[in-house]
């Protein structure tokens, strides 16, 4: 399966990239995506997630072709 992964703000800087395509098997949740791009670590509490432009949790299921995003707490307004 292929997951389009996006990073924003300080996470984008920490990962050194804004997006990437993750091609892997055995990925069923957002937490799996994070582990795949972050060497097996769990998602830190301070990291927010979205699947297909909607807020998600580490337990949210992901499917082939989904866009998964990780970003720090928002600071607009």
């Amino acid at each position: 399966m292929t997951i389009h992964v996006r990073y924003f703000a300080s996470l984008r800087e920490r990962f050194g990239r804004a997006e990437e395509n993750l091609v892997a098997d055995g990925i069923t949740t957002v937490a799996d995506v994070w582990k795949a791009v972050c060497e097996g670590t769990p998602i830190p509490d301070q990291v927010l997630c979205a699947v297909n432009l909607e807020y998600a949790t580490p337990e949210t299921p992901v499917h082939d072709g989904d866009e998964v995003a990780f970003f720090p707490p928002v600071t607009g307004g």
Partner: protein
Amino acid sequence: MRVEIRFDPFDPLVELARYQSELGSASTRLGALTLFIGTMRDHNEGEPVEKMNLEHYPGMTERQLWRIVENAQRRWNFDDALVIHRVGDLLPADPIVLVAVWSSHRGTAFEACRAILEDLKHRAPFWKKETLPDRTRWVAQNTGGSDRRFP
């Protein structure tokens, strides 16, 4: 109702006048308009700020903003709302956000305007990076809010 992301500087009062003229006389007959305008400050947490970059998540930001306004409309049943938010490179005194709510009732207008602003600050994907005289820094999390519903 309208939600807009702006990549260039905007004048909140001009935008408001334009939106009202599009609405026609309906908007001015509603009795109450409550408005919030947030502008960039030249200091934050005790340090001078020279400029700021506002990043967003194209697609998700618009969708979340629209949902915030829709939820507020359902809850308060106001008549109209306009939200404009800047992204890109800002200088001190540049407008960042405009939230306007039209209603027949002043209480509704005040409460809905504030709730939209607070939800925007806590749920809309925007991130501020400040340029100080000697370094840059990401702004820490917004505080407070009328409703914490992060997933």
